[in-house]
């Protein structure tokens, strides 16, 4: 059976065929579809965890109990679960344990372009890197075997072009799910110094053994050597392999399947058989540094950039003198295409809140999610964005840097899912250390940016079954926020929101404002079809205030009166609240 699959879907298929019992992840582009696909296999226990550390630790528990388990994340998620990763490397596994991480060179949807391979080396854990969907399935399935064979967690590293490309996958039969016996073994699993000291020795031996086994049998590391013309030899892995094949089809290639640890003898042998050795790898000179340390002469980053994605064109340009293909158009003769900047959706509840912050002119410590777009016009209301959960800590830091003074004009802004991911510990800290900060939780009842995943505050699990629901109000109260300092507002009511924010900025204690309204793209947030905002053209004074909110559903007509795009208008009423002349009216109201 052959099927066309996304790389991410193929990873899920590989885990399914390997008989994985349990998968726990936090969503993050470009990794999200792995766990979403897993959820379609009914026999696998599968869940969204509130963050990557939680997901990893749940998977570790399942592995110790004897089940094959996996956790998936985007590259920055690996930072969050680095703590358990480094030590489960020592304890090893019982059931096969796989960490799947998706890097994002080019930062299509990320805040940095860190290279996850550094984690494999630092945590002393083997890492496999597939280059297309078929390999995604094969490598993931194999990762579980490898994990059990060498008693180690295994990382599968993807990146955007592998995760989000579809190619042909040959399907295999699934291995029945089995859960191994569990025997108490504190020396193996209790990582206190006395045991860990011994385990470190085991880890170093394990790495040496894997290197040796890979050199004896290339299949152990899923390595492939393709000898063609030996004037040019290339060592590469993952998606870069595909670019290399297009750019220099005659070159000899050592394609690494396992990118950590590296097969020293194999690399030396390959290097000795080619006249010129070039390392082609996106992001860090990871392979290059290691290969140079083996005393092998090679070229790498003096030819290729540390930044962004590679292309076959770039590699061709650096390694050949082939002419660049001619384009069909003289592009200098073409008009300049207007841009399509990303915007907050029509009916997005966050918008009214950000407009309120813009009017107040306060400093805003922002966070990761759709609402990062609050930094763009017309809101321009975000001062800083670093990582998941940082808004709360940064707002607290501002308070401490100014002895509480700047808490009068600074807020932290965070989404519901991000707050539960890693904002809550920061809030506890702020209360405990007597901050005066104000936090705004944008509660849109979903994890928005990654494509609508459930979280502990939405009332549903990954399979959309009803689930216990965290109350954000009670949670905030339980870490010590005063009941009267927890305010719930409707962000579309932008002037009321402004008033409440102003009041809470003045408060000499931590305040939490919950701006609550569901995302406009989920069923509970969507308006009834055909009911839209209506314009009373007799009352319209053509002031343009409604157009300045830049709602995609409100178009400025030629005569400076608004036209409502009935296809996209979500009848949220933000423009109605902005209009001072009563010229706009919500649909379906008398």
């Amino acid at each position: 059976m052959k099927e066309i699959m996304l790389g991410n879907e193929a990873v899920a298929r590989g885990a399914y065929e390997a008989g994985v019992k349990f998968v726990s992840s936090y969503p993050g582009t470009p990794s999200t579809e792995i766990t979403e696909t897993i959820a379609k296999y009914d026999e696998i226990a599968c869940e969204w965890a509130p963050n990557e550390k939680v997901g990893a630790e749940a998977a570790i528990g399942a592995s110790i109990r004897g089940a094959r388990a996996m956790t998936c994340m985007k590259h920055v998620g690996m930072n969050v679960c680095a703590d358990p990763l480094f030590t489960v490397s020592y304890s090893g596994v019982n059931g096969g344990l796989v960490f799947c991480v998706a890097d994002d060179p080019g930062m299509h949807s990320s805040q940095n372009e860190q290279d996850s391979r550094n984690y494999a080396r630092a945590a002393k854990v083997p890492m496999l890197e597939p280059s297309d969907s078929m390999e995604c399935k094969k490598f993931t399935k194999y990762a579980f075997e490898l994990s059990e064979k060498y008693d180690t967690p295994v990382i599968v590293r993807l990146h955007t072009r592998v995760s989000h490309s579809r190619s042909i996958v040959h399907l295999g039969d699934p291995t029945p799910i089995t859960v191994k016996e569990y025997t108490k073994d504190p020396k193996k699993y209790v990582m206190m110094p006395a045991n860990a000291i011994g385990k470190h020795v085991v880890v170093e031996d394990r790495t040496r053994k894997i290197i040796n086994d890979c050199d004896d049998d290339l299949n152990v590391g899923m390595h492939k050597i393709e000898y063609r013309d030996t004037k040019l030899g290339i060592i590469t892995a993952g998606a870069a392999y595909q670019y290399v094949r297009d750019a220099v089809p005659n070159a000899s290639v050592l394609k690494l399947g396992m990118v950590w640890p590296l097969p020293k003898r194999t690399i030396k042998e390959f290097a000795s058989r080619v006249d010129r050795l070039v390392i082609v790898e996106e992001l860090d000179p990871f392979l290059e540094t290691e290969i140079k340390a083996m005393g092998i002469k090679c070229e790498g980053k003096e030819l290729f950039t540390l930044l962004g994605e590679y292309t076959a064109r770039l590699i061709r340009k650096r390694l050949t003198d082939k002419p660049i293909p001619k384009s069909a158009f003289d592009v200098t003769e073409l008009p300049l295409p207007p841009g399509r900047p990303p915007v907050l959706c029509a009916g997005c509840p966050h918008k009214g809140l950000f407009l309120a912050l813009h009017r107040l002119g306060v400093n805003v410590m922002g966070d990761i999610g759709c609402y990062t777009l609050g930094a763009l016009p017309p809101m321009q209301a975000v001062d800083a964005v670093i990582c998941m959960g940082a808004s709360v800590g940064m707002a607290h830091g501002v308070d401490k840097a100014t002895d509480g003074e700047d808490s009068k004009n600074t807020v932290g802004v965070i989404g519901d899912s991000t707050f539960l991911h890693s904002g809550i510990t920061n809030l506890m800290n702020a209360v405990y250390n007597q901050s005066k900060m104000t936090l705004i939780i944008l509660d849109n009842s979903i994890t928005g940016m990654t494509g609508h995943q459930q979280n502990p505050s939405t009332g549903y699990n990954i399979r959309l079954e009803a689930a216990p629901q965290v109350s954000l109000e009670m949670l905030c109260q339980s870490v010590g926020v005063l009941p009267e300092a927890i305010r719930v507002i409707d962000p579309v009511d932008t002037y009321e929101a402004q008033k409440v924010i102003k009041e809470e900025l003045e408060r000499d204690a931590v305040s939490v404002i919950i701006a609550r309204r569901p995302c406009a793209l989920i069923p509970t947030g969507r308006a009834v079809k055909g009911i839209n905002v209506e314009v009373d053209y007799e009352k319209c004074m053509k002031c343009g205030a409604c157009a300045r909110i830049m709602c995609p559903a409100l178009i400025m007509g030629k005569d400076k009166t608004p036209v409502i795009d009935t296809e996209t208008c979500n009848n949220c009423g933000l423009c109605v609240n902005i209009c001072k002349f009563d010229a706009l009216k919500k649909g379906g109201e008398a």
Partner: protein
Amino acid sequence: MGNLEASIVLAGVGGQGTLIAGKLLGILALKLGLDVKVSEVHGMSQRGGSVITYVKIGEEVHSPIIEDGTADYILAFEQVESVRWASLLKDGGVMIINNQQIESLPVLMGQVEYPKNIAESMRKAASKETKIVDLDAFDIAMEIGTSKVVNIVMLGALSNYLGVDENIWKEAIEEAFAAKPKTIPGNIKAFEKGREAGA
């Protein structure tokens, strides 16, 4: 089976169905017994953003990305998108433009102007060997009853140039929409109308 080798760019605006069109081309390649890669970018390209999908079909496909001057076909689902990705088309390639205009926010706000007579400018700037086809895929789709089939109208237009039997296309459509069988007749009709309009 087939000996088709093609690099196809699907360029449009979020929500126009380029992803589904890409998937359908993948199914088509599978039916022909060929290798295929379809590359998408998710994430920030939410509603209203510029969206691009690359499809490469052949005996053996390596990189999923199509580079400047190497696309055999570009299906521009929107006028301005045909300009944005024009440099990808190879000398002698085919550009199929849907005459639909979707104004982006900077245009709606009056900050920049939407370029006029795009198809005409494209023809002027194109090399002699390059073919430009324009059609009203949106109007055709609306005649069938829903703007959702614009993507299949566009594939219908493309089918004139790929040399793949019409019946294989229709089988691929049936397979792509197997989960929503009610939509199959409308999509088949969209394909036929597009094939007619893009000939």
